[in-house]
């Protein structure tokens, strides 16, 4: 119990501190962005330092869902089901935030909130897959069966994570690629220590935020299990 309350306090505090630092770095530490021909870029680019860490965090969340689903099916221990349902719910929020921050940025740079191209479509599909996962959980009443079927879906759904990640590398896409090479030859572009440091701090901040949200959610779910157990023992 002391262990739980310890991580329950330190983790959120750490997340809050890093998040403040990360936001501060975005607004005060980052130099002005220069385009290829030397012109100063619109500061709407700064939303990228939220957008990409959130995207990475949502991939991480769905990886957690996948791993704990496999572990549940193998071991049959209920705690893994709690992990996967907590990570899935938080992951859905992050997947939605990816779409929202991306749309805001797209409006500023492309002039439209949304265009239909592979990266955006697969990101939307990723969000929908895990919304469907939550719907599936609601549609089954028996806890045992719910955990089992949801685990199967969590494994199957994970197959669409790599496609969303790879889509800008596979197809010619309007979505900018910041690291690595695209199939069509363009790519890269984020250079300079201060930029990469800001990005790194932001990634760490969002992962800590994710971890503390999941730990809260798991605590809630465990309490709910306890309540259910008590209630059924009263009958």
């Amino acid at each position: 119990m002391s262990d739980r309350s310890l991580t329950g306090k330190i983790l959120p505090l750490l997340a809050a501190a890093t998040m403040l630092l990360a936001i501060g770095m975005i607004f005060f530490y980052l130099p002005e962005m220069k385009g290829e021909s030397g012109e100063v870029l619109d500061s709407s680019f700064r939303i990228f330092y939220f957008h990409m860490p959130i995207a990475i965090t949502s991939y991480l969340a769905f990886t957690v869902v996948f791993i704990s689903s496999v572990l549940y099916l193998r071991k049959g221990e209920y705690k893994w089901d709690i992990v996967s349902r907590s990570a899935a719910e938080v992951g859905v929020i992050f997947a939605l935030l990816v779409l929202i921050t991306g749309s805001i940025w797209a409006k500023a740079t492309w002039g439209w909130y949304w265009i239909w191209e592979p990266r955006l479509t697969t990101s939307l599909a990723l969000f929908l897959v895990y919304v469907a996962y939550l719907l599936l959980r609601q549609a089954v009443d028996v806890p045992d069966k719910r955990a089992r079927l949801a685990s199967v879906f969590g494994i199957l759904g994970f197959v669409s994570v790599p496609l969303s990640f790879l889509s800008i590398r596979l197809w010619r896409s309007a979505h900018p690629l910041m690291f690595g090479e695209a199939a069509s030859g363009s790519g890269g572009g984020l250079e300079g220590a201060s930029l990469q440091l800001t990005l790194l701090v932001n990634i760490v901040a969002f992962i800590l935020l994710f971890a503390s949200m999941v730990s809260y959610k798991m605590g809630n779910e465990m309490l709910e299990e306890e309540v259910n157990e008590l209630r059924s023992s009263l009958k």
Partner: protein
Amino acid sequence: MIRILDIAAKDLKEEFRTKQMLNSMVIFSLLVIVIFSISFGPILGSSENVEMVAPGVLWIAFIFAGSIGLSRSFVAELENGCLEGLKLCPVSRAAIYTGKAVANIVLMLIVEIITIPIFVILFNYNIGGLFLPGLVIALGTIGFVCVGTLLSALTVNTRTREILLPVLLLPLVLPVLIPAVMATGSALSGASMGDISQELRLLLVYDVVFFLVAQLVFEYVIQD
């Protein structure tokens, strides 16, 4: 292997006895085409426009017809404890899945073989070759059915199965549908194998991945 075919043959025999499912799938996919012709009415005059929307319309028809077929695939087994009977068969659980999937693939291919010629006639549409579009559509269908059969077994246990199946199925099969629609469009307008090799590879990879994953987890779906 023989056992898999036995299970598929059982399903198909049952289906051909009444042809209930097959008839409604074919009619439904034709209805989708009719609705399409109504909603796109004025722009269908030129063959260029038809060429542009054809792969999309065909796939919408296949997917909708396929979803109805899949939603019945395991519901039929609920009657008279057929699923229990199947599970008692001296075959592995994965063989049950594969047999079911084979039967569903056959049904969907029949629907497609009927739908495509009718589409071609109704819209005065020229197909540039038979083999390549056939290959693309077959690969897309296999991927769709591989996921769909597993989810059909999965949703049979839930409260709102008929509604839940398409909601779960469509986002999951998107990795199959995107390359399938892209490649069908190019293949129908006469592209060569090399032009769509990337889409074909992606389709093949997802077919194999979905099939293998479904084989592995099917056991957990029907255990009770």
